[in-house]
């Protein structure tokens, strides 16, 4: 495009003095959800070009993981999507378990499914809160935080941490849940649908909300798949792809749930998908609590926290570790050459871990397929031709977290 010729909404403007108004939105901006930076080129308020810049939060998790054992990397997964860290823990654990060939006990599977859906609720509640706040509905924000607070309190009850949980471990979960926790969670799930209805009274039929969201940031099914969108962002476009259904893990094969899909692929459909997903998560949690079996919470052959850094290194039977939940590794054949890619459905989309193992207790290469990274890449496509206010709505609707994007 020549510099003095800018096309906008089909109108060609030829003017020597004409140049687009550039504006740097972020990294410090109230609506970019972290340290996302968008370079916008504007014609009036219409976005001609949107260039996302990321990497402000890059900590080199993948390089760190190459120098830490599988068990030591687990806490790093908290710091990916830090508003739903339970889901990352589970995703990481199932990937390592697949690599090592460990079968998890049924009770641990149910517990993980519960915490994963709780994480989905916390993630979606924070998404709804901030999305509504960006569009200007301030009350929804505080309503959502009321319920999110309850969920975080329950996380605190089972593991002691509210955000960076590190609850799962390879081969199960670190600590059993109590009856009190299950009761309070069940009471929460009984109440929660009415709370969702409360949010919807404020925005769902609101004409301003509909005007701001319908027909904005449209992405068709083919484009969405080609862009690599996943999760509710993809399903809003009408593509029925959910890792929980396509590649079931943990207790998802045993529970009955539906995957809500949209049709138009605009901001409103993505919003509806997430709202319906909250209902489904609620129902999954209830089913899991009702079917919670007794039994061990950690696989018999789960690896020790102390993993061999080298191939040849023997793990000595240590008296301090041989009692309690931690069992020592006997099977030396577990660490074998090979690679796996395992994904899980986290609130943002498909969180995948690609491991290359060379036979040590340390991954030779770990790659994180972070949904936020792909979604931010799609922003330049989604924001083109929209208005500045729509950019905010689109960022909210693809639901990104920069901790996960920058890794």
């Amino acid at each position, binding site marked *: 495009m020549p510099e003095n010729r800018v096309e906008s909404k089909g109108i060609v403007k030829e003017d020597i003095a004409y140049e687009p108004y550039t504006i740097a939105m972020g990294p410090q901006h109230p609506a970019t959800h972290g340290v996302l930076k968008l370079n916008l080129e504007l014609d009036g308020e219409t976005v001609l070009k949107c260039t996302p810049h990321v990497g402000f939060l890059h900590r080199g998790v993948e390089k760190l993981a190459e120098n830490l054992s599988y068990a030591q990397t687990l806490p790093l997964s908290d710091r990916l999507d830090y508003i739903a860290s339970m889901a990352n823990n589970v995703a990481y654990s199932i990937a390592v378990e697949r690599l090592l060939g460990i079968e998890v006990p049924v009770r641990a599977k149910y517990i993980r499914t519960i915490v994963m859906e709780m994480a989905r609720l916390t993630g979606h509640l924070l998404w709804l809160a901030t999305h509504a706040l960006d569009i200007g509905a301030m009350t929804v924000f505080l309503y959502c935080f009321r319920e999110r607070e309850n969920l975080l309190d329950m996380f605190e009850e089972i593991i002691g941490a509210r955000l960076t949980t590190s609850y799962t471990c390879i081969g199960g979960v670190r600590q059993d849940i109590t009856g009190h926790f299950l009761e309070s969670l069940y009471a929460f799930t009984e109440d929660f649908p009415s709370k969702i209805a409360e949010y919807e009274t404020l925005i769902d039929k609101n004409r301003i909300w509909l005007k701001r969201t319908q027909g904005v940031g449209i992405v068709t099914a083919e484009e969405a798949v080609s862009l690599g969108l996943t999760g509710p962002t993809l399903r809003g476009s009408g593509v029925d792809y959910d890792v929980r259904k396509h590649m079931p893990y943990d207790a998802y094969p045993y529970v009955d749930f539906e995957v809500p899909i949209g049709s138009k692929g605009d901001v409103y459909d993505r919003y509806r998908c997430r709202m319906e997903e909250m209902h489904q998560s609620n129902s999954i949690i209830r089913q899991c609590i009702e079917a919670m079996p007794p039994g061990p919470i950690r696989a018999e052959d789960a690896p020790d926290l102390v993993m061999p850094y080298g191939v040849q290194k023997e793990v000595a039977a240590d008296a301090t570790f041989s009692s309690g939940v931690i069992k020592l590794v006997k099977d030396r054949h577990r660490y074998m050459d090979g690679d*796996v*890619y395992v994904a899980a459905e986290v609130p943002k989309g498909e969180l995948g871990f690609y491991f290359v193992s060379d036979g040590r207790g340390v991954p030779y290469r770990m790659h994180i397929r972070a949904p936020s990274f792909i979604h931010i890449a799609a922003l330049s496509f989604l924001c083109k031709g929209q208005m500045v206010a729509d950019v905010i709505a689109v960022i909210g609707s693809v639901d990104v977290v920069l901790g996960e994007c920058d890794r």
Partner: protein
Amino acid sequence: MEPLEIAKKVRDRYPSEFIEAYEHRSQVGIVVKKDRIVEILRWLHDDPALQMNHLADLCGVDYLNKKKVRFEVVYNLYSIPQRHRLRVRAQVPENDCQINSVTEIWMGANWHERECFDLFGITFNNHPDLRRVLLPDEWEGHPLRKDYPLDGGGKRWSGYEEVVEKSKKLREYDFYGLYQDPTKKAGQKDARE
């Protein structure tokens, strides 16, 4: 379709490109040469029986001193309508560190390839916008290469001198004498290094 069958089909169709197929933890991968990678992937994407329309992941792997060919670019493909999965690994030798871009097949490959270029230094031909994505533009080296030093080798990051200069300038606002000379601490740090 069973993944092993797909692997067989790829071998039959591109025998000169095909190197090997393997199965690990019931996941099937194929290793191919890099020269016709776009053609192979386009066929996997377009063939009505395969329809690998979801590029789940694209990343690089560095096999320094482990394999003859140093780099690999790994494409994890999934077919949403057919529900099958295949991993394609393209070998990229160190002396010819480039591969063709697949952004024309999947738009979403854009940033994956930028990330791979950023962290491994593998160049993607025909890429629309090949810049660093996670690291600053003036960064030297590619951190996920196995020969990248873990401790930075005592080198200061670019812009360090400017920050030191600025802190000297700002010392005039130190009304309470809180400033401590960094050179004293730097001596300890050097000893550790």
